[in-house]
């Protein structure tokens, strides 16, 4: 264990305090208090006190009363009472009301104290973990709410569009009109499909464990060219990838591919409509166990005021292109998992550059 467990001991008899400290100072970090006021002072200063021992018989206030007093103010530390047989009724009722975790008979032996600290510490850790899990759960609920909201727009939206198109299509007889309508219906279906696959990415990247292996970025580049080459060449987008990998690199290939796919899809999606020099450049270099990936495009760009929020869930920087608002959120989440970082710079109307750094695992 790197750090000693912090233990607070309260007793009005200074001999007991000194004895306690002498017995346990090597194994634990011991704080001492002669009365409730001193104890509270310690608690206020040391948020990381894990276990509190308190003597039941003290002038002014009993140990049970003291624990009852501090319980709401300092709920986390584990409360242990030290007492003789005579106080057994008070102890039982204190345990039953949840004010103390356990009690130790007087005179105590070292073994009892050690075991109480160890058990108390375990309980403390379990409790803290529960708090962390609760926070995670709260976060998950918030995300679920956002998701429910987006369901009506991103899942239902394209579907209602298609339904409306079918309805109006029923009274069309001009084949060209019908074809135009079909084209738009197709777009809606693609949008829906895009949304579903990014939802899939999102959940698999959230749930999945990393699978670390050697990555050959040249192979990754070949695959990107296979997937996007035809599309970019028919749409007159120059698509170049440059790899400089003199050393091995280890990470999760599927996650890295997901990141690249998202960024390349964006670079394609947000190209300027009527522009002759469309291009996407990817530069990947691996040096000193860090991969630096730079993806630049000649797209519509992102206003600087949106740099922060584009990585948020369901955020969309632009109105005239339909994105799901999940892509970059997934990218950022995946990078955090890989211990990496993403930065963006962009000039509206000129293009966007995403710079990623990912450490080798």
């Amino acid at each position, binding site marked *: 264990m790197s750090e000693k467990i912090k233990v607070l001991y309260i007793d009005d008899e200074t001999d007991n305090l000194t004895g306690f400290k002498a017995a346990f100072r090597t194994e634990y970090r011991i704080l001492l208090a002669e009365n409730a006021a001193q104890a509270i002072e310690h608690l206020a200063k040391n948020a990381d006190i894990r276990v509190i021992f308190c003597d039941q018989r003290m002038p002014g206030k009993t140990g049970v009363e003291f624990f009852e007093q501090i319980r709401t103010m300092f709920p986390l530390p584990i409360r242990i009472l030290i007492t003789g047989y005579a106080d057994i009724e008070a102890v039982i009722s204190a345990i039953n009301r949840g004010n103390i975790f356990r009690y130790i008979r007087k005179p105590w032996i070292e073994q009892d104290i050690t075991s109480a600290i160890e058990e108390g510490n375990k309980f403390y850790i379990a409790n803290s973990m529960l708090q962390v899990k609760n926070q995670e759960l709260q976060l998950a609920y918030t995300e679920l709410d956002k998701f429910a909201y987006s369901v009506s*727009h991103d899942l*239902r*939206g394209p579907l209602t569009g*298609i339904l*409306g198109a079918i309805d*109006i299509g029923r*009274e069309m007889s001009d084949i060209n009109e019908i074809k135009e309508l079909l084209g738009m*219906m197709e777009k809606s279906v693609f949008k829906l499909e895009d949304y579903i696959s990014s939802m899939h990415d999102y959940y698999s990247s959230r749930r999945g464990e990393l699978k670390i292996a050697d990555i050959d970025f040249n192979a990754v580049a070949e695959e990107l060219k296979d997937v996007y080459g035809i599309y970019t060449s028919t749409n007159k987008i120059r698509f170049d990838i440059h790899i400089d990998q003199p050393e091995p690199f280890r990470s999760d290939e599927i996650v890295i591919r997901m990141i690249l796919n998202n960024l390349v899809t964006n670079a394609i999606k947000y190209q300027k409509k009527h522009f002759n020099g469309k291009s996407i450049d990817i530069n990947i270099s691996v040096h000193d166990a860090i991969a630096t990936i730079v993806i630049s495009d000649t797209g519509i760009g992102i206003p600087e005021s949106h740099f922060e929020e584009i990585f948020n869930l369901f955020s969309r920087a632009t109105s005239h292109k339909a994105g799901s608002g999940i892509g970059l959120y997934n990218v950022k989440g995946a990078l955090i998992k890989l211990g990496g970082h993403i930065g963006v710079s962009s000039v509206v109307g000129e293009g966007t550059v995403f710079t990623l750094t990912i450490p080798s695992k």
Partner: protein
Amino acid sequence: MKIGFIIVENIDIDIYIATELIKRMVGEVDIETFVTADAALNYITLEKAPAADRHIILLDLMLPRMHGSNFISLFEELPDHIKDSYQIAIVTSSMNKGELERLSKRPNVEMIIEKPLTRRKFKSFLEKINIPIAYTKA
């Protein structure tokens, strides 16, 4: 009586459907399309709309930059001589019943139309606000 339509919608297919329905069921009228609510509001505020006795707004709710409900709130602050010629139909795929219920009670909102916008729904909207239907097979 001269009628003009304003479509506030950012989804291509929905703009297309609304435009086609207006052309087919109302006839050749002015149709202005905005993909954001703030642009539409600007247009209305500056009284750029071609002169017409009645302006009908087909308003989507989930729009980028400004939500449709914010549009309605800001619209309500416009002077009466502008507001009086406008009627709003909310066209939405929102499933938030509470929000829709509240919006349906706003003074300038004539109707909430749940997407998909179909011939039948558009017809009943036109009937409700007494716009003669030029042509329909619905």
